[in-house]
């Protein structure tokens, strides 16, 4: 730790924002993709297995959670790309705070996810979806979602540091889709075989989705999942944050 943790992290965050300014199209695509998924599952494919009542009401909080989890891909891609670029050598030869590169990455990704969440909420409202429950519950739901994103971010950074190259990210991309769908974001576990239902219920994604549904008064909400929706991401962070920072500090060894 140095007295420059904050300024270095801010400098690295500014770098990511400058990248956005250079490539607004790429940022836009990243923001629009989850909205497209929402529209596709809500209207094109339609109707989740085992969901009674208004499917969009069930789907929207699930898509929020899914988007947060899939943010992992973007993080991994960005980190691996940075690793293959020469600029990482310059950063590592400077007397800057170890890990400020990673903090900049996570700040930018969190910002993008927050904007993405706002955009999806706007689209959901336009489609007639409503958050019930008070503003406190709404903020709590947003907090849970961003916490999940933050945990997935550090999982993503760690996996990216192991993978090293952007091509390796594809393997993870292929794996993350089944993990994302092996949850209750699109359908309830009631309609699944027992063993699958159990797996689905244990998926951290399901915990966050259920707790968020509960807070927002949406279909499929159940009380009592709040602790799991907090504990799961915190647990992931406790493991992957130190692993990622340590691995970054040991690059080149």
């Amino acid at each position, binding site marked *: 730790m140095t007295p420059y943790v904050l300024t270095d992290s801010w400098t690295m965050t500014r770098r990511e924002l400058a*990248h956005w300014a*250079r490539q607004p199209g790429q940022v836009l695509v990243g923001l629009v993709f989850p909205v497209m998924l929402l529209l596709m599952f809500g209207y094109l494919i339609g109707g989740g297995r085992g969901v009674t009542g208004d499917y969009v009401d069930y789907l929207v909080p699930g898509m929020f959670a899914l988007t947060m989890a899939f943010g992992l891909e973007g993080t991994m891609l960005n980190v691996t790309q940075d690793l293959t670029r020469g600029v990482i*050598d310059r950063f590592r030869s*400077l007397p800057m705070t170890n890990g400020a590169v990673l903090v900049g990455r996570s700040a930018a990704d969190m910002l993008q996810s927050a904007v993405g969440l706002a955009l999806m909420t706007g689209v959901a409202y336009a489609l007639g979806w409503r958050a019930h429950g008070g503003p406190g519950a709404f903020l709590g739901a947003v907090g849970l979602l961003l916490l999940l994103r933050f945990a997935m971010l550090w999982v993503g950074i760690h996996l990216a540091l192991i993978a090293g190259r952007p091509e390796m990210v594809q393997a993870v991309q292929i794996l993350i889709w089944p993990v994302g769908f092996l949850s209750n974001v699109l359908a309830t576990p009631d309609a699944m075989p027992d063993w699958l239902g159990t797996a689905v219920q244990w998926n951290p994604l399901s915990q966050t989705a259920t707790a968020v549904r509960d807070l927002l008064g949406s279909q499929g909400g159940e009380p009592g999942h709040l602790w799991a929706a907090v504990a799961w991401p915190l647990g992931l962070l406790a493991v992957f944050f130190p692993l990622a920072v340590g691995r970054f500090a040991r690059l080149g*060894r």
Partner: protein
Amino acid sequence: MADTAITVEDARKTYGTEHALDGLDLHVTWGTVHAVLGPNGAGKTTLVRTLSTLLRPDGGRIEVAGHDVLTEARAVRRRIGLLGQYAALDEQLDGRQNLEMFARLHHLGARHARVRAAELLDRFDLTGTGRTPVARYSGGMRRRLDLAASLITDPEVLFLDEPTTGLDPRGRAEVWAAVRSLVGGGTTVLLTTQYLEEADQLAHRIAFVDHGRVVTDGTPDELKTLTGGDRIDVVLRDAGQLGAAVALLPVTGVSVDTDRRLLSAPVADRMSALSGVVRALEAAGIEAADVALRRPTLDEVFLHLTGDENRVKEAA
């Protein structure tokens, strides 16, 4: 302050079965330019990356500006500048954004960083690049910006890994001028190169590196003496007479270059060799286009030391 700017003792780095550094020793005196010369794969980049804390050696003692690269990496990083073999720049950002970012990470503060970036852009003739991202720079512009980035804090020790590879003669002259002015200001420079001329022009000392070790280390003059002192070159008018000339010249160890109609041999006594050769040629009626005494070139030293003639001929 430590006596030497750079101390490397028995440095080792192994990749699988490949010994990139195989017990390398090097001492660089403050305020001098030390060239590290060697063929592809000799271990030059591995050495520079180890010295600049990017790569952890497997063994050995390595100190830069009196600080251990392993245990005092941050102290080392505060004192060095690095121009790597490949550009270490953010390709998506423009030149000013790059330099300001690196200056902030050197903790110059926002205002000072802006001023420093502007100074360096001006000094390296990059002010006109405006908002163009580095990805669209030419190779020479990129190299200049990279060099500028390595000079943000006037480093005590500067590492240059093949700084002029891929530059045109003007770009090369600019880099050389920059290195000379830095050394004039007291900077210690460790420079790797594959160009013997570059080492000859810039360096106070030259270390020949091959297979991860220093084969020899000395001043350019000392190294040239190593191959046996002076040489005599004889260029004939008629290539057909080369064979006859080799047989009758009063020297040994003659090498023949048919394309250039050239005979070359080491000599012990300059004047007696010269007059002996001229007389022998006259007596045999062989006409010479040129006869000259000279110091050996570093190419010959290189060839002599690595014992690998083919590699040098390919490069030439």
